[in-house]
């Protein structure tokens, strides 16, 4: 008797692989034999449960996790392939409350599909956005993206539609779409997970952007720290060419778009868009002064769209479902969903995609479940290395660009890094300055020299010899960096420093008088 093999899903996402997913997949394939088809999907984003194994059953996909290679034999013996009971059984994947309570829009297919199967992609709604976009004029597509309220997910939150309109309006026979996949912010990994888990969505989003602005060539600039994402994207792009989703006639229309992957050089500053453009041109990643803006004079001086992975990755859904569906989510001027990333010392880390407006506390304590160490949460850093450190007393803050700005913080790329009560906030402030000194492009003095001075001053403050004078010095330095820097590297490094000082002054030592 032969029957259809049972499908078992084991993620190929590099986070899952980092804790043994490959060994688990191999073990399942070896032990279960031809009765099983192992699909390497993306990760559902419940990273504390990785490797998360799912089995397709008549009642849906049943999840088990975290599965170690040693667990495989026992799981199979217990009836894994039938979705049977086992201590690691989590029930139907999509009914796990952590996942069920999210609003997956940009990440709708991540963890669900085989990332490298074009058929799977189409079967799960892929290409609907591009197909619709190509039935509209570029102006109509730009209007739709504008109406959706989509703002850049890379950090600055600039309205995507307005940027696209500028590029569309610029006269040039050559225009570019560049995807910023440098994802240098510590605590962020959503770009990586989208590229590894659903690369066709990014490709489709870039093709839509190209159609909307009249571009014929695109580049994805991926950081070199992400070799798996680079490989997955390259394979997906080859498949997209084969299917006619890229190339001279996209979807058999009179529209050509070529797409290339470029790998960064391990420099954080190359995430800044003009530095990235310099790097794409084969130069040092020195930040350019603006104006001219990249939308008018970008890559090789041509009109260029620069958008983050998540920005471009949200476009297919917006075009497929219409602007109103996206704009109907969120609060104030922060529309749609944001893909938040919980990391650091957190019990349940991973991807939380939900409408803007969820509070910081709901993310950290609700989804995150507090710290991994079991100790009390003391601080969280939101928005990457240039973002503010916040105490638990600010857990009421809604995740919303404007509310965070008002609290002298930023949402940035949506990373939330949790620290327990063993954290030394003076050391974190010092690290912010050290990082700026290490990663400054070197163009302006307040950043290049200021950051080095910052490290020294913080050391002196902690030593506590002339604390009052040194605190004043640090304040002046932060002011100088904020005001005198060309880009946000130098301009925002004071944010983590000042927030640490404001919310956790006791960590910065005491004066000689105070100690007496």
């Amino acid at each position, binding site marked *: 008797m032969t029957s259809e093999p049972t499908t078992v899903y084991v993620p190929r996402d*590099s*986070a899952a*692989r*980092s*804790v043994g997913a490959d060994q688990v997949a191999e073990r399942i394939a070896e032990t279960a034999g031809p009765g099983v088809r192992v699909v390497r999907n993306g990760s559902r984003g419940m*990273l*504390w449960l*990785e490797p998360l194994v799912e089995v397709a059953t008549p009642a849906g996909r049943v999840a088990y996790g975290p599965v170690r290679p040693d667990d495989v034999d026992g799981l199979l013996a217990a009836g894994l392939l039938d979705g049977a009971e086992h201590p690691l059984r989590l029930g139907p994947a999509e009914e796990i409350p952590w996942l069920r309570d999210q609003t997956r829009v940009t990440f709708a297919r991540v963890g669900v599909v085989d990332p490298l199967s074009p058929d799977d992609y189409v079967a799960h709604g892929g290409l609907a956005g591009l197909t619709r976009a190509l039935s509209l004029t570029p102006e109509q597509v730009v209007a739709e993206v504008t109406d959706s309220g989509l703002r850049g997910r890379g950090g600055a939150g600039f309205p995507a539609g307005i940027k696209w309109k500028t590029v569309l309006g610029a006269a040039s026979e050559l225009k570019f779409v560049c995807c910023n996949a440098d*994802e240098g*912010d*510590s*605590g*962020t*990994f959503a*770009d*990586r997970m989208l590229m590894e888990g659903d690369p066709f969505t990014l490709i489709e989003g870039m093709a839509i952007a190209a159609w909307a602005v009249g571009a014929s060539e695109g580049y994805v600039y991926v950081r*070199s*720290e*992400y*070799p*798996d994402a680079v490989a997955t994207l390259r394979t997906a792009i080859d498949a997209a060419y084969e299917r006619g989703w890229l190339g001279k006639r996209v979807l058999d229309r009179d529209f050509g778009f070529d797409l*290339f992957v*470029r*790998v*960064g*050089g*391990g*420099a*954080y500053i190359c995430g800044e868009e003009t530095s990235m453009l310099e*790097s*794409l*041109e*084969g*130069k*040092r*990643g020195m930040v350019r002064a603006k104006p001219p803006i990249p939308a008018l004079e970008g890559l*090789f001086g041509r009109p260029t769209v620069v958008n983050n992975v998540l920005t471009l990755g949200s476009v297919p859904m917006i075009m497929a479902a219409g602007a109103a569906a996206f704009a109907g989510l969120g609060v104030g001027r922060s529309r749609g969903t944001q893909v938040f*990333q*919980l*990391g*650091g*010392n*957190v019990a349940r*880390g*991973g991807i939380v995609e939900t409408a803007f407006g969820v509070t910081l506390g709901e993310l950290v304590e609700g989804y995150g479940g507090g710290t*991994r*160490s079991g100790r009390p949460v003391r601080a969280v*850093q939101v928005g990457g*290395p240039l973002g503010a450190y916040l105490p638990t007393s600010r857990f009421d803050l809604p995740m919303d660009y404007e509310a965070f700005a008002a609290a002298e913080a930023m949402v940035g790329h949506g*990373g939330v*890094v*949790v*620290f*327990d009560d063993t*954290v030394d906030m003076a050391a*974190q402030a010092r*690290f912010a300055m050290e*990082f700026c000194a*290490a*990663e400054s492009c070197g163009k302006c003095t307040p950043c290049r020299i200021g950051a080095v001075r910052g490290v020294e001053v913080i050391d002196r403050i902690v030593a506590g010899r002339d604390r009052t004078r040194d605190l004043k010095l640090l304040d002046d330095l932060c002011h100088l960096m904020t005001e005198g820097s060309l880009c946000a590297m130098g301009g925002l490094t004071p944010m983590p420093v000042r927030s640490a000082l404001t919310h956790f002054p006791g960590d910065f030592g005491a004066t000689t008088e105070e100690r007496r």
Partner: protein
Amino acid sequence: MTSPALSFADQVRSVVARHRDDRGALLPVLHSLMEELGHIDPAAIPILADELNLSRADVHGVVTFYHDFRQTPPGRTKVRICRAEACQAVGGDELVERAKSRTGVGLGETTPDGAITLEQVFCLGNCALGPSVQVGDRLYGRVGAQQLDRLLEGAA
């Protein structure tokens, strides 16, 4: 017979030739050279400048700007430990200290037997499963002291 110097130059030129059609080809060329030769030998700089119609200073400037490009041969295995915030929160710094004392070299250095080059890295995109370590192209998460020792032994 080809002299070693000539074959090196040819090697560099053939890498450049593969990227002829790339716009702004220098970074892809340098990445390919790193892959094939492990480092950017300073002797490659004038050849690259000549082939790509750039000044030597331009090429040198690019090679030195990016952390990824090195001008001396690396160890056989690169071990990179994440020093960024999310990993700091779960003991990344202790891991760095342990790796330094185990290998006897500092960050950016290679063990005397040429086995391991130890490096720092700021975020590997595995921030929910830190501390994170990359060995070659391979990512490891939730790396504790014992696993670090095993990784270092495996690389030695």
